């Protein structure tokens, strides 16, 4: 027990240090507001991608409508803060809650479907949501909602991303529910035979994942300050899936890496010369395909980055370094 608390405190201290480092970098202008923006964007989409990884990577349910739940969260929170003056944090909770409830309502019938049929159903659901928003004047229709306050600061995104990470990590690796969810992915029929109510666990995972998408949507609305239905169409769902698959389905740290790379990459390509700039999206496409070809299981596979793993890694490097330096020294002496 003591050991647990020690680790717990260590992690919290680690988080605070990381947060402080970021803040110092922001305050001193080492990271300018452009990078601040990109980092916040990564954080927001990370929350959504973590939710998607729970559905796609851990539960094995093929969904293509994740962006729709982001739009539900975005619209819920934007309407609440803008039209009703609800406090931002409360609006975020409402965004996550609405998305999760809708996920349960939708999930109950359609999660009985499997594989590609589920994929097309969720994709259809996403399009239905989009068309619905376009046709409701109160939601601004195609003209979207502008004038949303800029509330999604680095702090709130950082805390919420860490929280979502911890929730999924705890759920998957340290609870019986998590083992049930994993069993659905591994072999649904066997899981059923063992007395696991697979539909129930699929819905639980779907609701939590979509709730996170809703949360991310709420953050996004107060980050971009403008939302329109076009921003959450099926290509956004594909994009989110790209983050998860590139990082590794079933690896949360992989999702972090995947999201960071794929959001930073097109921005980084802006820095290139004019000739290359014209081919920015072409280069992006080539890099995406080659990353999948060279690492089909994703960057992390199903592994996680751990302290032990890192120690091992750095230990190896150190040993290599030491052995080479001693050999150099030896050479000198000789």
């Amino acid at each position, binding site marked *: 027990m003591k050991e*647990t608390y020690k*680790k*717990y405190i*260590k*992690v919290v201290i*680690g*988080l605070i240090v*990381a947060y402080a480092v*970021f803040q110092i970098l922001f305050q001193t202008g*080492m*990271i*300018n*507001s*452009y*990078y601040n*923006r*990109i*980092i916040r964007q*990564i954080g927001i989409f990370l929350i959504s991608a973590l939710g998607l990884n729970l559905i796609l990577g851990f539960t094995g349910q093929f969904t293509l409508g994740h962006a729709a739940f982001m739009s539900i969260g975005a619209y819920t929170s934007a309407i609440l803060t803008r039209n009703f003056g609800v406090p931002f944090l409360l609006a975020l909770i409402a965004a996550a809650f609405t998305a999760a409830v809708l996920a349960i309502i939708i999930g109950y019938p359609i999660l009985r479907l499997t594989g590609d049929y589920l994929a097309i159903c969720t994709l259809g659901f996403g399009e239905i949501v*989009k*068309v619905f928003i376009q046709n409701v004047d109160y939601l601004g*229709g*195609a*003209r*979207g909602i*502008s004038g949303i306050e*800029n509330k999604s600061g680095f702090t709130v995104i950082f805390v919420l991303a*860490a929280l979502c*990470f*911890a929730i999924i*990590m*705890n759920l998957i*690796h*340290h609870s019986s529910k998590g083992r049930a969810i994993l069993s659905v992915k591994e072999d649904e029929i066997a899981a059923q035979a063992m007395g696991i109510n697979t539909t129930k666990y699929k819905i639980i995972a779907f609701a939590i994942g979509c709730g996170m998408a809703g949360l991310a949507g709420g953050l996004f609305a107060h980050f*971009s*300050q*403008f*939302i*329109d*239905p*076009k*921003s959450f169409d099926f290509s956004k769902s594909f994009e989110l899936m790209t983050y998860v698959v590139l990082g590794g389905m079933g690896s*949360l*740290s992989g999702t*972090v890496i995947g999201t*960071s*790379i794929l959001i*930073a990459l097109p*921005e*980084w390509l*802006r*820095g290139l010369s004019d000739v290359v*700039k014209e081919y*920015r*999206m072409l280069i992006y496409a080539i890099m995406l395909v080659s990353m999948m070809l060279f690492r089909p299981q994703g960057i992390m596979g199903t592994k996680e*980055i*751990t*302290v032990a*793993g*890192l120690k091992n890694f750095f230990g190896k490097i150190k040993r290599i370094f030491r052995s080479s330096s001693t050999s150099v020294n030896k050479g000198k002496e000789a």
Partner: protein
Amino acid sequence: MKKNVFAKMGCTILSLVLTAAMVTGCSSSKSSSDGGKEESAEIVIGGVFPLTGDIPGIGSAMENGAKLAVADINAAGGVLGKTLKLISEDDQNQASVAPNAISKLIDQDKVAGVVGTYASSCSIPMATIAKERGIPMISIASTNEKVTQEGGGYVFRACFIDPLQGKVGAQFALQKLSAAKAAMLYDKSQDYCVGIADKFKTNFNEGGGEVVFDETYNRGDSDFKALLTKIAGLNVDVLYLPDNYSTVGLIAKQARELGITCAILGSDSWSDPGLVTVGGSAVEGCYFTDHVSFETDNPKVKEFAEKYKSQFGSEPSGFSVLSYEAVLLMANAIEKAGSTDSSAIVDALKATDMEGLASNYKFDSDNNPIKSVVINQVKDGKFVFAEEIQPE
């Protein structure tokens, strides 16, 4: 049991830090070396255009117009005795990408001002950033009123706004085409189309006409026969199609095939040679509200069109002209302000009284230009000047 979780989480965040630091490290060194060396000799402005994404044609027409403006200004001695430099960025015509583009220009390239972009859904989030950072921005072709409203005084535009365009369209249909019954068909998912169609309907109905058909289609549709068949049975006098040139070309073609012979009226996004490429003979005789006409006696416009053709090998569009004028406005304001101080530029922009290529520029209290609307007609595959309507 919890220990692993948090240990892992710590490392994950570390990896995030590393990734971010890596990205920052790469480019910040580059920009600082750029800025330090050339600051004295150059004035840098930024341009945001939809260079990739679904409408790269419009994006390159706009970028080319801006490039020409910069070349012309530098040939005439530059701004404040320094050379003007344009850094263009791509917004992919996506609302989520455009703010990153302007943010990069402001924070990384330290531009004095920004011109851009095409879609209102991109210009609106850009405007909020321009306001936050206090950098002057001139939207080139975004006609939604919200663009300048969200800009808090820092955002101007080179084009007219949706309400004006819808109003002028309705006026023209009622008076010149003596239409009594109108049909509208537009893309429900495009903010641009919805905004204009809305204003057209209000003004047309108020002016004594009647909009008898108001239906929509979806983005990416290619077949409009279902709704056109319905229109064919209504015997309308005018069909209003406020959408992109490429879509409109298809609609006009199918309308003519179904025997709809009434006049067709459109909006400024028709203004691209692609309209005739796709629409062919079907768009012959159609009218549309536009920013400029190339078939005029205006020597400046003619010279621009020739230069454009010789340099880029293609016909300029109305958006090339707007983009040219936006750069001109920005350069003019910097010259008047006497420095690149942003509030001085904003003040100079507010007091603008400049002769552009096609029209004179003055801004009203909402930072929208007070300028006339041109109505062009398609004749022999060319856009011929039909009328110029001054706003009241």
